[in-house]
């Protein structure tokens, strides 16, 4: 079963994406989507050594909402910074110590940090224990680190690292 259907979640996600892609919501396309959703992971199974474990679907949804909200809000802030006086910016590199241990979670965290306004994940330390973040306009580095850990790292840990 595991070999025949390596990633059931992925299959469902892909089927859903297929329906989005074709913009047509018919039974035929659902079947086709499921077929592709099965076929693609099956054909590329060898590239997926570890299967992804996702817990806490509500947390995940809440997390997505938070991120989208942060993006929209933050974008306006960044826009203001850009349209303002560039010379008054206070850029800084900030090191965020990491509690996350899986590559996927770390990557998603880094991604989130980059997507949200004013910060870009620049570098992951060699031991994967800290992330260096570049901030466009830094008030207090410690607050920023705490915010990141609270808003993003904690939920990610709950979603991906509790199995």
């Amino acid at each position, binding site marked *: 079963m595991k070999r025949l259907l390596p990633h059931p979640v992925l299959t469902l996600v892909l089927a859903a994406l297929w329906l989005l892609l074709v913009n047509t*919501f018919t039974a035929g396309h659902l079947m086709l989507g499921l077929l592709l959703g099965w076929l693609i992971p099956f054909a590329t199974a060898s590239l997926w050594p570890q299967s992804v474990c996702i817990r806490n679907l509500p947390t995940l949804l809440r997390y997505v909402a938070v991120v989208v909200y942060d993006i929209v809000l933050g974008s306006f802030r960044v826009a203001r910074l850009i349209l303002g006086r560039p010379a008054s*910016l206070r*850029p800084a*590199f900030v090191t965020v110590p990491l509690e996350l241990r899986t590559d996927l979670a770390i990557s998603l965290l880094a991604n989130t*940090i*980059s997507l949200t306004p004013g910060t870009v994940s*620049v570098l992951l330390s060699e031991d994967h224990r800290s992330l*260096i973040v*570049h901030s466009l306009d830094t008030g207090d580095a410690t607050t920023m680190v705490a915010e990141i850990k609270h808003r993003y790292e904690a939920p990610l840990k709950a979603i991906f690292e509790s199995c």
Partner: protein
Amino acid sequence: MLDILLSLLVLTGAGFTFVGSLGLLRLRDFYTRLHGPTKATTLGVGCLLVASSVYFSTHHTLSLHEILVTLFLFMTAPVSAHLLAKAALHLGVKSLAPVPPAAGPGPDGIGKPKP
């Protein structure tokens, strides 16, 4: 009403696209310039895509495939930014903010020559 919503979305989208690129032009070092495109622009394109989705869903049939482009951009933009920053650190590109030694090209840094 729909017209207003669409116009708003289009204008916001185009506006953010503009601002993001303006940041790319105006800001003073590479690391700050990196911020413009990765965020403002993604939001800009995101808005435009939503506008497109709304437009086609109302003018033709339900159109949600724009979500896919958004998903794609949201998944890739941070990776691009990350790699760009990594490359800039590796090359020792001038930074306004002091570069922490662990990130710099020096003997402790990630760009240090391999033994």
